């Protein structure tokens, strides 16, 4: 039999439909791959026995003629989604062995569609990071390497590494400033952050509520579309959930882009960007032209203010959201002399450096006298960024940019200035601030043989165009490189 871990999700679903293999066989192949890939540290919690049970149940359902959208597919879940009866810790010590008694709406949708869950995937602590090095459970190692271990990007580093290494057919992820798309770019995978409100936030550990959005990381654009169809949908338990239909996005993949107007924003040509990334972007323009799209120069004048606005809004909301970790109702408690001392000791022991830094920035910008100068101003700058995009949509239907300003870098690279790490999100963060959909597609390799991605941004709720353009880019790039299997 062929190596089942090399299949795409779409091909695996077809293979099970044709009876070529069962979900249990597919699941066993992936469990074996997971067991052989401990060096990557992609998973925090394995749920292999549960996966076997779910696979058997799926095979029984199929025999009776009940087949869901993800029927029998072994997938990974970022450890930010609460999963009933399975430890969920957000990469943080402060949650201890927290075991939810409920299921996040996103994973509940996927379970209802027949998902088999292989385990909970590693991430930056509370999704705060761009390299997966802030996890209390150790860094994830990118399956792609040259002489040294490389980061898989972050915060969804476990999700991206697991998909790239063939440990699962796809994975859930979340994106607050680029946490789906930058790891996808770093690992040669596809990742989409949909329009804010497409996926319910209920049951997903909160980082910055006005920016957080779930989405999938997958092997192909079509696989990402299938996964997003399952994850999306209205949920009364999230008041920002959008009550709109979920289109069959997988049908948009492969459609012609003839006449589609693709905008190229001049503000994304930043100083110091590696020439290879500029060259790949130029190549992307040529590919889209050759596929029949029309290329339109556009301007997004407030782009340079996106990251600073993000680093007001995200820490401010994080400091509020993370106030709940007080050691009283769940998670870690470190006893102190009195109540306040217990709070201080618990939170100091439970949170890592980067999380503490962001809580303190957030607390500062929200503190008396500074709210208007920082948070309110940043929210107004967000409106300016939204206006930039609205002007752009007068002349284009989608926007093409690089995903990240670099290829994956070495684990443990010395970062003395936190702002340097924040710059990883320079091309992705604008869509979080404006709530727009954005996808990263693997488009080529750099001189060291490491993957690089290109990003397509679309109008709010127009994921269909995003998938169509991404699919054309995928076809033209013909990216079929895989990391050499050094980890087992």
């Amino acid at each position, binding site marked *: 039999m062929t190596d089942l871990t090399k299949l795409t999700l779409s091909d695996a679903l077809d293979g099970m439909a044709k009876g070529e293999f069962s979900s249990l066989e597919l699941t066993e192949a992936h469990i074996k791959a997971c067991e052989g890939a401990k060096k990557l540290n992609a998973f925090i919690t394995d749920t292999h026995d549960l996966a076997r049970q779910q696979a058997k149940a799926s095979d029984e359902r199929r025999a009776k003629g009940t087949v869901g959208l993800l029927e029998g597919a072994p997938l990974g879940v970022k450890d930010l989604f609460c999963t009933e009866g399975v430890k969920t810790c957000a990469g943080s010590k402060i949650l*201890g062995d*927290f*075991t939810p*008694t409920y299921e996040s709406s996103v994973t509940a949708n996927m379970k209802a569609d027949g998902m088999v869950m292989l385990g909970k995937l590693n991430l930056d602590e509370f999704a705060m990071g761009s390299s997966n090095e802030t996890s209390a459970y150790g860094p994830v190692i990118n399956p792609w390497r040259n002489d040294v271990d490389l980061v898989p990007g972050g915060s969804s580093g476990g999700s991206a590494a697991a998909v790239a290494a063939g440990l699962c057919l796809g994975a859930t992820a979340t994106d607050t400033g680029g946490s789906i798309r930058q790891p996808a770019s770093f690992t040669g995978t596809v990742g989409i952050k949909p329009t*804010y*409100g497409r996926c319910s936030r209920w049951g997903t550990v909160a980082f910055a509520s006005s920016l957080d959005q779930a989405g999938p990381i997958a092997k192909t654009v079509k696989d990402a579309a299938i996964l997003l169809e399952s994850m999306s949908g209205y949920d*009364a338990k999230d*008041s*920002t959930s*959008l*009550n709109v239909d979920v289109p069959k996005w997988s049908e948009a993949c492969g459609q012609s882009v003839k006449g589609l107007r693709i905008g190229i924003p001049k503000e994304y040509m930043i100083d110091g960007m590696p020439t290879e990334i500029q060259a790949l972007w130029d190549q992307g323009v040529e590919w889209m032209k050759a596929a029949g799209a029309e290329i339109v120069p556009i301007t997004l004048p407030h782009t*340079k*203010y996106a990251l*600073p606005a993000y*680093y*007001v809004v995200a820490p401010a909301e994080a*400091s509020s959201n993370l*106030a709940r970790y007080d050691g*009283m*109702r*769940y*998670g870690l*408690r470190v006893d*102190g002399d*009195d*109540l*306040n001392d*217990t709070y201080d000791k618990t*939170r*100091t022991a439970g*949170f890592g450096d980067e999380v*503490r830094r962001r*809580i*303190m*920035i957030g*607390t*500062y910008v929200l*503190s008396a*006298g*500074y709210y*208007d*100068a*920082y948070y*309110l*101003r*940043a*929210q*107004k*700058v967000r*409106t*300016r960024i*939204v206006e930039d995009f609205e002007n752009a949509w007068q002349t284009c239907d989608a926007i093409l940019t690089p995903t990240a300003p670099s290829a994956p870098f070495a684990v443990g690279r010395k970062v003395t*200035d*936190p*702002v340097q790490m924040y710059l990883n999100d320079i091309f992705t963060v604008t869509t979080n*601030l*404006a*709530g727009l959909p954005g996808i990263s597609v693997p488009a080529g390799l750099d001189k060291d043989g490491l993957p690089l991605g290109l990003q397509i941004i679309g109008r*709010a*709720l127009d994921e269909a165009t995003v998938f169509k353009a991404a699919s054309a880019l995928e076809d033209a790039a013909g990216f079929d490189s895989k990391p050499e299997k050094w980890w087992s």
Partner: protein
Amino acid sequence: MSEPVNGVSAEDVKKIARLSRLDVADDRLAPLANELNGILSWIEQLGEVDVDGVEPMTSAVDMSAPLRKDTVTDGGLRDDVLANAPKKEDGFFVVPRSVE
């Protein structure tokens, strides 16, 4: 920006840490003040943007806040609520004394 921001001192860091319910060791106060000042001075460039008459962003897609009937939709889950408590007794959370 209109407010004085450049120059978070070690003393300010102590105050922020207090508000954040975090302990910062005394020898970490000055380095942390440096880091925060670095980030804050980078954020300063937001002051260049003309935001006169601009409404703060509320949502990406125009939608009105959803309403529902004011009825109980959940509850009766005491054991679930207590399931992950660091300390519990007889169906209650056990917490440090807060009133003398």
